[in-house]
């Protein structure tokens, strides 16, 4: 047996994050509660270091290493950068919230960083084994994070639901992986793609494997009819954790779909396209319709996530490089909006008061006009109002499916996003046209204010000049 040590350079960001997370874990043990901000600082430093490492080694051509388990390509690197950025914002927004709720503990950051590591592994996975392991690392961290507020029965219930349904989804995915492995004899995504191209859909085991994979993936994405966990988990988890779940993992889930369905089973595109059409249609329909009935904003945003997932799937099911680029753009923009929306929610919560109802936004304009403006921008962007980046993202996705001739699906998409606009604009109405119910001043730290403003303004700026990000996405996918 001849063994040559693999090239470790491409894996450097992962190694760095792992080392730093272990460091944070050990350092945190020796800290007093009042020194906890050191843990926070180290966590941010980890993300910064990983971002620099990824940026300096940005891949222009795909490199496979670790014996085919790891790939470094432009798509992966771009997604990783977005993941660091989103997680850094998550850590920042949730800092004050956690402190006020006595949850400012090292575990939040350690588990959060392990989640980031899991996402990184998923994003640059090149074998079904690393895909699955990365997913499990992320999921385990998320289950624990949801339950981190141990005294809250709602959070425990949500964590339990998430754990059971998440395990079920992982089981489905694993079942699909094992069937695909049985049919093709390979877990390496490249070899898998070659084997699938050779035998097509003649093999029933492969068909079953594909179905199970799609089911597992849609569970993880939260697409209807596998969305049951999303609203309960979003509502039950502490808002800081909801923020975490609703942001960066969506980028990783997008990568997951791209790696498995597009890179691995790309030749079966015609077959999974039909499944994704059904999933996308149902997600847009149910997400937008049910969100109207919600009075809890966390729940409303959960259903809005479901409808956004439907849109994201539209881009992927187009099956063209333009469609994938549009879906990637959509995911990044969605994460930006979700981080902002939950960020505002976190700012509004204070000691002994949890902002989670739409009514809590009433008259925000009178209390803090700038925050109200930012929230309005985010909501309008989610609704897809022109000149906001959300509009451009929706437009790109719809264009990609019109290009492949699915005009009826595009019309359906437009129809449902018009329906969806109702509940986003209702929040805007609450912000500006209702009287505030309590006039407690809103306190937020300077750095949070700066970042949340940047976050909101980015939605406008990207809406006016979307080409830079869009071209990054297309070059990342076209190579």
């Amino acid at each position, binding site marked *: *047996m001849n*063994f040559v040590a693999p090239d470790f350079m491409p*894996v450097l960001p992962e190694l760095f994050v*792992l080392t730093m997370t272990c460091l944070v*874990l050990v350092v945190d043990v020796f800290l007093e509660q009042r020194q906890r901000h050191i843990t926070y600082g180290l966590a941010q430093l980890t993300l910064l270091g990983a971002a620099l490492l990824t940026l300096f080694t940005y891949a222009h051509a795909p490199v496979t290493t*670790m*014996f085919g*388990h*790891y790939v470094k390509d432009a798509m992966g690197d771009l997604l990783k950068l977005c993941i660091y950025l989103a997680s850094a914002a998550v850590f920042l927004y949730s800092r004050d919230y956690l402190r006020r709720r006595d949850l400012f*503990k090292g*575990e939040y950051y*350690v*588990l959060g960083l*392990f989640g980031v*590591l899991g996402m990184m*592994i998923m994003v640059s996975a090149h*074998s079904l*084994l*690393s895909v699955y*392991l*990365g997913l*499990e*690392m992320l999921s*385990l*961290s998320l*289950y*624990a994070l949801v*339950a*981190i507020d*141990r005294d809250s029965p709602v959070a425990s219930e949500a964590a339990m639901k998430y754990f059971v349904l998440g395990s079920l989804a992982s089981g489905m995915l694993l079942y699909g992986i094992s069937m695909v492995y*049985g049919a093709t004899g390979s877990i390496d995504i490249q070899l898998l793609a070659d084997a699938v191209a050779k035998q097509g859909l003649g093999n029933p*085991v492969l068909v079953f494997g594909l179905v199970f994979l799609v089911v597992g993936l849609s569970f993880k994405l939260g697409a209807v009819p596998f969305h049951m966990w999303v609203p309960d988990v979003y509502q039950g988890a502490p808002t800081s954790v909801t923020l975490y779940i609703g942001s960066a993992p969506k980028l990783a889930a997008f990568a997951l779909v791209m790696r498995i369905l597009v890179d691995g089973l790309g030749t079966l595109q015609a077959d999974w396209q039909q499944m994704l059409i059904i999933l996308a249609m149902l997600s847009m329909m149910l997400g937008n319709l049910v969100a109207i009935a919600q009075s809890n904003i966390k729940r409303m945003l959960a259903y809005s996530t479901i409808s956004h997932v439907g849109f994201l799937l539209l881009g992927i099911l187009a099956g063209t490089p333009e469609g994938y680029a549009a879906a990637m753009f959509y995911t990044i923009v969605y994460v930006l909006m979700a981080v902002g929306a939950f960020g505002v929610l976190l700012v509004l919560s204070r000691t002994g008061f949890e902002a989670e109802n739409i009514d809590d936004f009433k008259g925000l304009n009178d209390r803090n006009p700038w925050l109200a403006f930012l929230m309005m921008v985010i909501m309008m962007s989610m609704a897809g109002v022109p000149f906001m980046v959300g509009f451009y993202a929706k437009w790109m996705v719809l264009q990609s499916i019109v290009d492949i001739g699915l005009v009826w699906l595009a019309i359906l998409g437009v129809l449902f996003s018009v329906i969806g606009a109702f509940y986003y604009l209702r929040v805007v109405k609450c912000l500006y046209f209702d009287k505030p119910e309590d006039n407690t001043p809103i306190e937020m730290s300077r750095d949070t204010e700066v970042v949340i403003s940047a976050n909101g303004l980015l939605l406008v700026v990207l809406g006016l000049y979307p080409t830079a990000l869009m071209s990054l996405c297309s070059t990342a996918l076209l190579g």
Partner: protein
Amino acid sequence: MGFEKFLFYVFSLILVLASVGVITVRNPVRAALFLVLAFFTSAALWLLIEAEFLAITLVLVYVGAVMVLFLFVIMMLDINVAPVQEGFTKYLPFGVAVALIIVVEMGLMVSSSYFGGDRYSLVSHAADYSNTKELGSVLYTFYVYPFEIASVILLVAIIAAISLTMRRREGTKSQNPSRQVRVSRDDRLRIVRMAAEKNK
């Protein structure tokens, strides 16, 4: 009938009997011990097909760790068996149906063209072949990346479990070794001087 085949039948018989024992004995500790026996005999069966690494791991992991833990749980928790056994006849038809489905499924699986015995025949190797060594040589080289990730996942699980369960409760009795060591006679002992009682 060769000696190997004879051994196979002996172990299979013990395995079947032990498995029946697991679900029929009334005492949960005995059931757990029957399960240990079942694990041991399946390990022996694996040894017969030259899968010595799997056999050793089964004994080490399942018997050595999982079952010991199981026994601890059974002994610690005083489970009342009577309510668990209620409604046996009520659930019997359902149980039988599920069992039948499983048997049919297994039959289909084994006889199918994908996983049938003719497709995967027994592999045998030379006497100096060690599958522990072979497994190790790929696990730590070509699969080192997934292997390391799996170990990190275990670390995450440990952190998650500890952070969710460890808490300082009021009123729990815990030892503080450094205080125990530093204790002096005066902290514990009080010499009371009393007048001696006189017998009358």
